[in-house]
């Protein structure tokens, strides 16, 4: 369970996240939706401190990390917090000089000091799980976008994080390749992993989300279960957002 309380993030004096409080329940999939520039990616990146929050608190399973204090977090605290989560990026960010297998093994071997044979077995199992058992020894440049993203998911899973963060995981993919990645994410959701997903794909959000957090202009507008959010949204700003989405569907 991750509890975010009164989180603020400023860039050069401008509030990108303004007093965000939200609970991400364990074993559930939360989708963060919102228009471009709403701060949803920044919120996700604050959870693993790729962006350092300006103020507020994040608690991982009751262990609080406070950002309002004058003293910044120590390097050990930052590393400890980061090791609780795994991240999947929009642009994959695989290590280009390492094979698929080596990408997945890197964290377990270097950070967790797992013996190489064990890490290799685990990598093999994870890559099989994401449908890449034939591509274990390939370098990223030999893989398609969808395959790269699945390696990235396996790399995140290898650290056995408490929560998986996805930052627009299919935005850089062709529609045909998008499907294979969404399928993997969906199966992870069915296994009751704790997941937080930022996406623009509303159809996918509707299918996968247990909870939807709608963010606009750096503030949380509405938090609801998927059904309520899409069928009976309470806030005017949410209704407007969904109406625009329906208009876009009519174009297709």
């Amino acid at each position, binding site marked *: 369970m991750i509890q975010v309380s009164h989180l603020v993030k400023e860039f050069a004096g401008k509030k990108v996240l303004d007093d965000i409080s939200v609970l991400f329940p364990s074993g559930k999939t939360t989708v963060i939706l919102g228009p471009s520039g709403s701060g949803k990616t920044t919120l996700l990146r604050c959870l693993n401190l790729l962006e350092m929050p300006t103020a507020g608190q994040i608690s991982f399973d009751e262990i609080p990390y406070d950002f309002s204090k004058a003293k910044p977090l120590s390097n050990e605290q930052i590393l400890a917090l*980061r090791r609780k989560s795994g991240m999947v990026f929009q642009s994959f960010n695989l290590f280009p000089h390492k094979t698929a297998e080596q990408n997945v093994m890197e964290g377990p071997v270097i950070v967790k000091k797992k013996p190489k044979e064990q890490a290799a077995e685990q990598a093999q199992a994870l890559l099989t799980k994401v449908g890449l058992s034939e591509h274990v020894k390939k370098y990223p440049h030999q893989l398609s976008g969808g395959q790269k993203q699945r390696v990235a998911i396996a790399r995140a899973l290898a650290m056995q994080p408490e929560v998986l963060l996805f930052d627009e995981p299919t935005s850089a993919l062709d529609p045909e390749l998008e499907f294979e990645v969404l399928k993997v994410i969906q199966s992870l959701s069915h296994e009751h992993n704790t997941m937080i997903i930022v996406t623009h794909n509303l159809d996918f959000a509707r299918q996968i989300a247990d909870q939807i957090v709608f963010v606009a202009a750096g503030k949380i507008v509405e938090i609801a279960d998927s059904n309520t959010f899409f069928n009976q949204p309470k806030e005017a700003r949410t209704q407007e957002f969904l109406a625009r989405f329906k208009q876009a569907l009519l174009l297709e």
Partner: protein
Amino acid sequence: MDDRLIGILSDALIPFAIAALKVTIPLALISFAIGLVLAFFTALARLSSKIWLNKLAQFYVWIIRGTPLLVQLFIIFYGLPSVGITLNAYVAATIAFSLSVGAYGSETIRAAIESIPKEQWEAGQTIGMTYAQIMRRIILPQAARVSTPPMFSSFISLVKDTSLAANVTVVELFRRAQQEAATTYEPLWLYIEAALIYLVICTVLSYYQRKTEVYFNRFHA
């Protein structure tokens, strides 16, 4: 070309080869190795957030790049004895060349490290790696690929720059050629012969540059 000239040139070949093998090449190899280590740590200092470390590295690069190598060599070999530091000519040359490779090389390495996208750092951070782990395992292997061509250029320049050591009594290839030319009065052909030996050494280096590039390109489309 007459028989006498051919005799002079073939007689000179062995001493030239010995001077190259015993002095020029070791001088270049040792200076480059030391210079590379110096360049690496200077680059890290330049990238450091510690101001004094950064300034120190900047100062070093500024001095070395802003003054002629030959003048530096003279200061170290002919100048330092007047403050009580007398160095063997080989040591003086090695110091001057290493400092030079260190300064120019640090800029190459710094640029190569900075050319690796920040997303690679982030990817390492999200799997919990420390700064040192990311630098060593993710950034440097990729930066090595980027810096291969310019670092080999530095190495090739250094091989030729070792001829400056002739001015501080080091009998390397060029000094040997000067000696031969002085006794035989055939400067044109003897210097061409010496130049060809430098060319051979640099050609071998170019060959290794290509091999190194092929090695690093295995992971690059």
